[in-house]
């Protein structure tokens, strides 16, 4: 069976991002943004400037990814001696202490997820810009995973927040957060915003016909 897929856009309709109510696309889009009759959210046919916004956020995240991994995220000071920890050395320490499952969890959340997220979004953007026809369904799934899994990278930031709250015994032991933590948190937030500003419908706009 061949034919054009009946999408909202091709039927002159647009779907509200917030409540999914369909509205007709107004003939002239100049007089400000249309508003959803049901939930009063601004209506867009596609997320506004999706590709350039996502690129901007993503490039910022790539840049901050370097200080996030090089600079210490926290320093453990005990009896005047300070020991700085980066994201990776924190994982190593957990392995040395014999806590392999937790080490794997942290490795996955703080290293695997951010890297995969950056790469996945880069790939999705390029595939849309080059009007790829390849496996749109799998690419949509990839997008969905990127969106869901992103927040779990925050584990390290929360862990630091709990450590500094608990360990403050002045001379004996204190934990100080490091500048790497700010960069790392920024990477996670920027990639979350990047995933939000990417519009998966762009993948499908390139897929014209049923096959």
């Amino acid at each position: 069976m061949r034919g054009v897929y009946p999408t909202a856009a091709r039927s002159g309709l647009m779907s509200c991002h917030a409540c999914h109510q369909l509205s007709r696309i107004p003939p002239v889009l100049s007089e400000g943004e249309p508003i959803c009759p049901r939930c009063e959210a601004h209506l867009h046919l596609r997320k506004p400037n999706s590709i350039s916004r996502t690129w901007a956020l993503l490039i910022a995240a790539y840049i901050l990814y370097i200080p996030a991994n090089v600079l210490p995220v926290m320093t453990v000071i005990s009896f005047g001696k300070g020991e700085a920890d980066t994201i990776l050395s924190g994982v190593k320490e957990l392995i040395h202490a014999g806590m392999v499952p937790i080490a794997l969890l942290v490795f996955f959340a703080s290293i695997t997820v951010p890297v995969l997220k950056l790469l996945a979004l880069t790939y999705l953007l390029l595939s849309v810009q080059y009007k790829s026809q390849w496996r749109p369904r799998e690419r949509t799934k990839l997008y969905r995973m990127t969106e869901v899994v992103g927040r779990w990278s925050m584990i390290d930031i929360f862990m630091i927040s709990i450590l500094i709250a608990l360990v403050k015994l002045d001379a004996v032991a204190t934990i100080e957060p490091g500048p790497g933590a700010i960069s790392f948190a920024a990477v996670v937030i920027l990639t979350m915003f990047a995933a939000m500003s990417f519009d998966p419908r762009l993948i499908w706009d390139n897929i014209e016909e049923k096959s």
Partner: protein
Amino acid sequence: MFPARSNEMNMSALHSLIACHECDLLHRVQSLHYGERAKCSRCGALLYAKKRDSFEHTIILALASLIFFTLANFFPFMTFELNGRVQVSLLSTGVQEFFERDMWELGILVLCASIIFPALKILGMLYVLGPLEFNRRPWHAALVFRMVEHCRTWAMMDVYLLGVIVAVVKLSDLANLVPGVAIYSFVALIFTLAAADSALDTHMVWEKMEKIS
């Protein structure tokens, strides 16, 4: 502003259709049985689902969440013992410590993710669903409910809990840690709020809001 111009017949035609939010394919809305879900035939995204007694369940679970939230914030979260020295911390102590060290960026981040967004989500759910259950539409219901939807991503108590676990594991051979009332409430809160989330039928809320207005 445009949308007012659609006449009634057009509106009902629009109501019988739904576009997939991930691939834009149009589908005819079909009535489902309880527990069934409608998925996009092209990309597999969830379109809508029908849930039993969605309003009642969500309200009850949100109320339970409110109680646990209060307990989690005002009772000791964890006690740290080392060489006879005892340090009690609250859920918000970490935030305070960030601010004291002039790392307000992280302070605000942790404050929002672990306290403010969960609170907004619980209160927003109750504010919208409570009156709707009695067929009244609260002030700015649409705005508040859209905010509740945004809080889904940014309320990160579940992630926070894993952070707690990693921190506890790191400290376990250094010191003696005693969990407080707040930590149990926090775990309970994660479950009740997740259950409230999955009981919530957003399409039903928007439809009801539209009927009452």
